[in-house]
């Protein structure tokens, strides 16, 4: 067993790539995901996001749409057109929310399209797990607290 392999085996957590240009938001998502038991990589624009996705092969990608240089849709398109990254489920998390915007996301192959206002960052972990388990984007409703 090489050192590298040993290192890899040690770390059985799944990697999630967060592509978000707002550093504050990116940190929030990263924290929430780490709390959820994931390893998190962060990229701050589409170019970086594509590059990291290609080399790190995350299990899931959280993708913002409005980013400088290369926007989310363009990144998504490139992700899905390269063999190494086409299978990775992409969850679009954006403050865009109109029907035609969701539609584009779906057409390009995103697994989920969630508006930032819809989601509580604390539930991000559950969301990723649900997607990875193949259950789609639906979050189970929170149990009513009384």
């Amino acid at each position: 067993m090489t050192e590298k392999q040993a290192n890899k085996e040690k770390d059985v957590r799944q990697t999630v790539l967060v592509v978000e240009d707002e550093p504050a938001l990116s940190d929030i998502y990263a924290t929430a995901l780490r709390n959820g038991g994931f390893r998190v990589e962060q990229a701050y624009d589409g170019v970086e996001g594509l590059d990291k996705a290609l080399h790190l092969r995350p299990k899931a990608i959280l993708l913002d749409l409005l980013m400088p240089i290369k926007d989310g849709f363009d990144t998504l398109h490139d992700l899905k057109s390269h063999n190494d990254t086409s299978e990775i489920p992409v969850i679009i998390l954006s403050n865009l929310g109109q029907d035609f915007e969701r539609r584009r996301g779906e057409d390009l192959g995103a697994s989920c399209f969630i508006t930032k206002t819809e989601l509580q960052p604390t539930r991000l972990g559950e969301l990723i797990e649900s997607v990875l388990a193949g259950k789609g984007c639906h979050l189970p409703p929170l149990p009513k607290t009384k």
Partner: protein
Amino acid sequence: MSEAVLAVLSFACFAYVYREYRRRKAAGLLSSAFGFLALSAAFAAWFGLETANFSGTGAAVGLIYRLFLLVIVLAPFLLVDGLQRAMGGNWIRLKTAGLLGLGLVVASLVEIFTDFDDVDFSNGLLVFHQAWWSDLLISLGWLALLGVGLYAVWHHRRVSGLRSLALIVVGYLAATLAFAIIAFNVSHPAPALFLALFAMSLIVTLCLLVVAGNHPDPAVVQNPYHLIRRSLSLKTAVLQALLFWLLYLAGMVVIVVYFVQFDLASKEGLTRQTTVRLTECVHDSQERLLDQVRVFALNPRELPAEYDGSGRLPDNLSDLISISGSRLVRIVDSQGRVVYSNFGASELGQSLFGWPAVRGALSGIPSASLEEDVGYGRPVIMAAASVALDDESQGALVISRDVDECYQLADAFGGRADGYGLIDRLGDPVSAVGSSLSAEALSTISAIDEYDAAAVRRTSSGGLLAVSSVTDSAGQVSGYVYAFLSPATVRASAVGLAAVIILMAVVALVLMTLALIATLAVILKPIRELREAAAAVEKGDYSRVVEYDRPDEMGDLAGTFNQMRSKIGRQTKRLERHIQEQNDFMVNTAHEMRTPLNVFSWTVDLLRFGDTGRLNKAQLELVEQLRQTTQRLFGLVSNMSDAAKVSSGEFAVEVKPFRLVDVLEEVAGTQSVQLREKDIELDWRQPISELPPALGDAQRTYQIALNLISNAVKYTDQHGKIKLRVKAVSRRSPDGPKGRYLQVTIQDNGMGIPQDQQDQVFNRFFRARNAVSSDTQGAGLGLFLVKKLVERQGGAVWFESTEGAGSLFGFTVPAVDVRDKSSRKSESEKS
């Protein structure tokens, strides 16, 4: 005469309409045909009766008159019925009025048959006599007919096209028939003139109606007068014919007026002549009789003072007097009592002292005068002179002569009066020959103060009257002689002349119009050829030559046209070649450019995907810029290639149903990031109800929408608004032809397009100067391509724009007609 013309015209109409009925089998045409036939028969019968100088009993003529009127009211009813069936529509009011008129006439006919012997035919329009109310009914009947006509004309403004024309026909028909009735009853040229006018208008309008109804061009059916406006030869012919007719009519009116004056003068002369002859005859006779009795004064003989009762003249008279015919001889005593008369013993003892002539003679002056001889019973011209009687008293010899001899003299010399006669001193008619004086003429005579044989007067009803006084030998007026012509006689020749003129006018007008149309058709033939050649040139056929080489103006025009045509042909071919070369160049260039662009693209991908080794962040960003630029270049090349192909026509556009809303959604999606980056609100509301599918090429429509929407995004500033709407419409463009389309409108509040550049917007390579200066990117091909693509699919594209305020672009795509079975089939095949 006009009745003959009308009969012929009506029959021609019948023949034509009947032939149409046989061809088209429309019920309305049959009733119209029979209407015309009835009219034709009626007019022919009228004409026949007049020509044959029909005169039967009053009842028979009255019956015929009423039968004729029945036809007059029945025929238009049939025609109106036919027209209404042909035109459609609910002419309930017209029909009711027509039925009413018909009913009235039938009622009057029924009345006649029950009261046959009481009927008495009198000439006149509104006749009131024993069976007066039957005529009242008839009059009401044709008043209803007039009402129908007036209503039709008034109503025609409310409808359009053929129906309007049909109503005008009804109006003309009613007017024609009304004037026919008037002309029948009144012998005045005016109604006959109007009759001809309206008959002509009727024929022309009917012809227009028939021709326009069958015309293949819907614009003509809509407004039949277009037929005249569109044909140069018809217009010219109608104008010229009208002009001719007006001039002819004016000329004829002048001639008629002169003729009437002349005729009147000659009639006046003749009337005066009659009066003069009569007066002269009376005076002459007076003189001659006077001479005869003067002989006695010079050769006094004693005449018997008592009548011997034999009736023979006393012997000493017979050698001096020849008694022939209507000569009366009387001898009176000094008291004026008749002692001898060859008239009979009944006169003996009667006093003739009342006669001025007798009084004059008894006082020693031989006198003569015109007197009404009560004993004889007729007016006589008498002369008297004193004679010695054998009982040594003074008596008088009175010789008289019947005034009839003067009447015969007047006749023998060609007196042409309708009547002439005598009036006594007191103004009472005494004797007359021919027609008697009307009361009106009598009142005219009594109103005259001076009797001058040279003056002929007109009575108020239009007759001529000449009166002159007859004086006795003492110079006193003893009576008046008159001669008159009745108004009918005065007018007769004018009426006859007017009828002939009108007939000639109608015939001349028809012939001239036909001749003009034929001539103009020949003269204007080169214009038609020119028009056809021009149409061919417009379609792109430059080989069509106008073959008219005569040296007149048309020949010049044709020659110039031919030269122009060949020049344009050459130019067009050259231009087309240029464009083709340009297009080919563009297609080739685009094709050539794809290869190096592909190389760029692959190289960029190799770099960024790490196949040449992992790049650092800065390098990756540069490569990303390169990639985006390459994509833009690809887009430009694609546009260029498409633009070239669509111009040269090698552009395949498929026609299939697709969902337009889906296409628009996709396009909106591609713009979502730019919209957010510029903070532009896209107001895109999906229609509430499902739209019909669009019929066209989904890919091309995507291109169109993408071009227009990305333009809107490009040219709208920060925080702007774009409104996107789609709906089903019934026109291809706001003022375009009707059809089923889906319309997409994109409204922005961006920089707009300057007013003076708006007509170049769809040109190839056009970029508005405010777009160029604002540093937005574009090659200018977008809108050019959009227009071509939209039109290729069968839609239209348009825009409205205000510089600085924004633009609205709209385009249409044909929609599937839900009733169209074939498209539904392809829909089900698709699913």
